[in-house]
């Protein structure tokens, strides 16, 4: 299993170097990357956005878009160099010998061609089958990738399929010409956790059955542990660590890998108060990098690191790592992590805050959307986006709201902010029902609840400076004089750990992590008592995620703010939440203390979510029995009768298909809506 020792590797990449010649300068995206991949091997390339992993993958196939170009290196597929090939030969290799699966299945499929036609034309071109043979094979392939009723499905169009189904079709397409290698670039990133688990399992099975090699590009270390045999970790266009999955996870050698693995909260075991975080942000690839690119963020950096760029070398006879410091950060700090804290010390706990009245209570909160009645249908359909949910949030606590897309969690958030008006039910904030507030009363409520958005870029007006963005709530609410506001803004930006020089920049000049800090500063501008964080870390890089989570946790402690944390990332939810509510199709199916739910999930859907979440530990992944739930999320406009989860539940009985279970108290720490929970 030692990499690079086999005689005839399937794919051998040598000193690959890819640059993008942009107007702003040369972006050195891939710098001297080398690795080998043998037949039947599953290799993962891990890295954050901008690490060059996708540019590297595109370089292999010569699919770089302008202004990218491969500067030097070799890419040998069974000894033939792909870089020197003519376009005609390359077209035979792409799709024929190397299949590809990309992130977004919707843009990879032709929207006006049926699935069958797309598969068939592909096979006629590459395998020279006649149309009938090709169609038969297409149906077989769909069955192989787990699409039921494949004959009928061949006539479907991409828009008729769910995201997971479309990704299966793409995999079928990649498989159709019996390639030797499949290149999958973030194939599950756009999918929900339960669907992601299905697709990963499918790719793994296919590679085992057919002996195909797999090159899997991802940012998710958990998926790597579940899936790969070999790993290359990329940072700033270089492979910084390269070896077998066991070596790499058990004894990571490069400080970047070591730090990354520690920033990810665990879904089992004790919860640390703070996550280990990597300071700073990834380097700007337009600037030439002196020495080691990670040196500025590295705990183990020595002066030599800034002068000399380390080469990959074998460490302790196991994996290769590019680091001058033997043992990486462990050499410096040992096994225990210092909890470095930013910002000021916590304020003394308010003695008076012993009141246990919740700051937020939802009672029978409901939001139905009616689709318009059309010419042919007299009555529109009702979508029960949020259906009679009840939750409460105590002062200074965090409530995690978990669920897949379409479960109603974002609609709930919009109602809490009164960006949307509930159909029925009450939203009680500090004892006042705000569901139907209007005018001045609504305005004064708005100071109490603020939100941190998922995508920190689209939540800022690109034409406004950071100063104006943070100041906007104060201006709109007409708070303070001009000088007061300026002081407040400076105070806020320091609170979130940024320097005041950023106030004069535009959002596009900031990195993702910095923008999310600004998003938090803006939410804090009105001194709210509740912050709603809607997937605040899902658009961020792994190394920056922990910074934002720690910041939120610190603010909760220092300012006594309560947080409603919406996410699909179970490990982060567990880390930050005191209580958790799991939502499925507009209903809460399990609700209780975070520890109890993660320790012993009662609802089959919660269990499925936990199984689906990969753990960044290959040994644990191997030992885990992974019981996946099949099928797709039903449409919220047409949910199954009885229990909404009955169509995917492994424990389903006849009763589940007729009656809907209600949320019932189980023990004193939680409520579950399932007939089988006991």
């Amino acid at each position, binding site marked *: 299993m030692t990499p690079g020792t086999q005689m005839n590797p399937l794919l051998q990449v040598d000193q690959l170097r890819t640059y993008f010649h942009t107007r702003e300068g040369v972006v050195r995206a891939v710098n001297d990357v080398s690795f080998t991949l043998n037949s039947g091997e599953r290799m993962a390339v891990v890295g954050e956005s901008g690490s060059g992993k996708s540019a590297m993958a595109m370089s292999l196939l010569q699919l770089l878009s*302008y*202004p990218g170009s491969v500067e030097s290196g070799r890419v040998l597929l069974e000894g033939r160099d792909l870089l020197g090939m003519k376009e005609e030969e390359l077209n035979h290799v792409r799709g024929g010998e190397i299949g590809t699966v990309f992130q977004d299945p919707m843009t990879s499929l032709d929207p006006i061609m049926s699935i069958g036609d797309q598969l068939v034309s592909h096979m006629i071109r590459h395998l020279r089958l006649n149309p009938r043979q090709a169609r038969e094979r297409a149906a077989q392939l769909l069955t192989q990738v787990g699409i039921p009723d494949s004959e009928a499905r061949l006539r479907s169009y991409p828009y008729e399929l769910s995201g997971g189904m479309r990704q299966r079709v793409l995999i079928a397409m990649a498989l159709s010409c019996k390639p030797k290698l499949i290149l999958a670039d973030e194939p599950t990133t756009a999918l929900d956790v339960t669907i992601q688990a299905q697709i990963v399992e499918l790719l793994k099975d296919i590679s085992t059955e057919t002996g195909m090699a797999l090159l899997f590009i991802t940012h998710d270390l958990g998926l790597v542990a579940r899936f790969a045999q070999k790993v290359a970790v990329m940072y700033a266009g270089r492979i910084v660590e390269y070896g077998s999955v066991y070596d790499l996870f058990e004894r990571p050698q490069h400080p970047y890998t070591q730090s990354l693995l520690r920033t990810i909260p665990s879904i089992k075991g004790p919860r640390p108060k703070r996550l280990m975080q990597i300071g700073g942000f990834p380097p700007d690839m337009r600037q030439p990098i002196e020495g080691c690119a990670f040196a500025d963020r590295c705990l183990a950096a020595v002066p030599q690191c800034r002068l000399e760029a380390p080469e990959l070398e074998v460490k302790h006879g196991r994996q290769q790592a590019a680091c001058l410091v033997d043992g990486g950060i462990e050499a410096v700090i040992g096994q225990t992590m210092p909890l470095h804290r930013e910002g000021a010390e916590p304020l003394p706990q308010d003695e008076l805050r012993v009141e246990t009245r919740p700051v937020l209570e939802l009672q029978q909160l409901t939001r139905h959307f009616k689709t318009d009645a059309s010419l042919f249908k007299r009555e529109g359909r009702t979508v029960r986006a949020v259906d009679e949910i009840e939750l409460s949030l105590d002062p200074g606590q965090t409530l995690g709201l978990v669920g897949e897309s379409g479960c109603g969690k974002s609609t709930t958030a*919009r109602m809490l*902010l009164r*960006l949307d008006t509930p159909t029925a039910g009450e939203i009680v904030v500090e004892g006042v029902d705000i569901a139907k507030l209007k005018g001045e009363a*609504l*305005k004064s409520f*708005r*100071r109490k609840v*603020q*939100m941190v*958005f*998922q*995508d920190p870029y*689209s*939540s*800022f*007006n*690109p*034409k*406004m*400076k950071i100063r104006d963005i943070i100041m*906007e*709530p104060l201006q*709109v*609410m007409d708070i303070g004089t001009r000088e007061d506001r300026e002081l407040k803004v400076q105070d806020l930006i320091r609170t979130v750990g940024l320097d005041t020089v950023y106030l004069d920049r*535009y959002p596009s000049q900031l990195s993702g992590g910095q923008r999310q800090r600004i998003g938090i500063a*803006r939410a804090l501008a*009105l001194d709210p008592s509740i912050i709603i964080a809607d997937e605040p870390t899902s658009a961020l890089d792994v190394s920056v995620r922990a910074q934002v989570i720690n910041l939120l946790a610190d603010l909760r402690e220092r300012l006594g703010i309560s947080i409603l944390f919406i996410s699909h990332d179970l490990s982060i939810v567990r880390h930050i939440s005191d209580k958790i509510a799991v939502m499925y199709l507009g209903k809460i199916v399990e609700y209780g203390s975070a520890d109890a739910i993660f320790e012993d999930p009662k609802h089959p859907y919660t269990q499925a979510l936990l199984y689906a979440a990969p753990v960044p530990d290959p040994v644990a992944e191997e030992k885990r029995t992974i019981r996946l739930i099949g099928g797709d999320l039903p449409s919220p406009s047409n949910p199954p009768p009885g229990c909404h989860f009955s169509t995917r539940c492994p424990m389903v009985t006849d009763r589940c298909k007729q009656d809907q279970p209600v949320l019932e108290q189980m023990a004193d720490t939680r409520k579950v809506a399932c007939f089988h929970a006991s």
Partner: protein
Amino acid sequence: MRHRFANLTLASVSYPLRMMPGLGWLRSLLGNRIGLIGLSILVPVLLLAVLVPVLPFADPFKTNVSVSLNSPSLEHPFGTDKLGRDVFSRTMTGLQTSLSVGFLVAGITLSFGLLFGTLSGFFGGKLDRLVMAGVDIFLSFPSLLLAIGLVAIFGAGFLPVVVAIAIADIPRAIRLQRSLVLGIKSRAFIDAARMVSATPGWLMARHLVPNTIAPMLVAASITAANAILTEASLSFLGLGITPPEPSLGNIIREGQMYLQEAWWISTLPGLVILLIAISLHLVSDGIREVLDPRARKS
């Protein structure tokens, strides 16, 4: 009266530029090759038109039959017409009229487009349906025909021509602004502002218009080019600027009878129109490229 308008139109174009946060993009327009070519034609032509009254040109109205239909020479760079008037100074005076029409129409169209498009897109509902119904009605007439009809009602002359062309162009501007507003309305920063009780006026002034003004300016520069062409067409048909007041259109019309013996009377002003139209289009391409990196090619 013409001169006053020339100044007013310049002001109406530079106002939204000042409103825009940061003029960085204007600087990058100067660095953009296409935009720079366009500007380097447009700016001298504009200056020339504005400075006509103070420059030592021949009197555009003075007839002198002794030099009737003289071909281009140093004294008369564009030659003379049947009545012996200097075609160059008539063209320059006509240019002033044409550019005034172009920029005035663009300014009016931009203002109406911004106002109604923003209101319609932002509030939706009944107002939107009403505005859009009006837009659809106007758009179902060919714009030149609409302008001809309006001139027939109000009579020929400078103001009726401007109003007629603007009315034909406003619906398009409204529609563009409305679709831009609809796109931006759903962005998260609008929610973020609504979350702190921002009023509709605040949202429109601080968030919507600043984000739509740039593409609207691109459209306005094309509107200006088209308005100049439409004015020329109307004047050529005898429905626009009435002689002896020169406009590029009516100079061409007058010269049309003498194409055989004096080609310069129609051809040279025609080339000037071409030059302005091309430069305006280049400028708008330049603005678009600077604002939308996706439009850039190698």
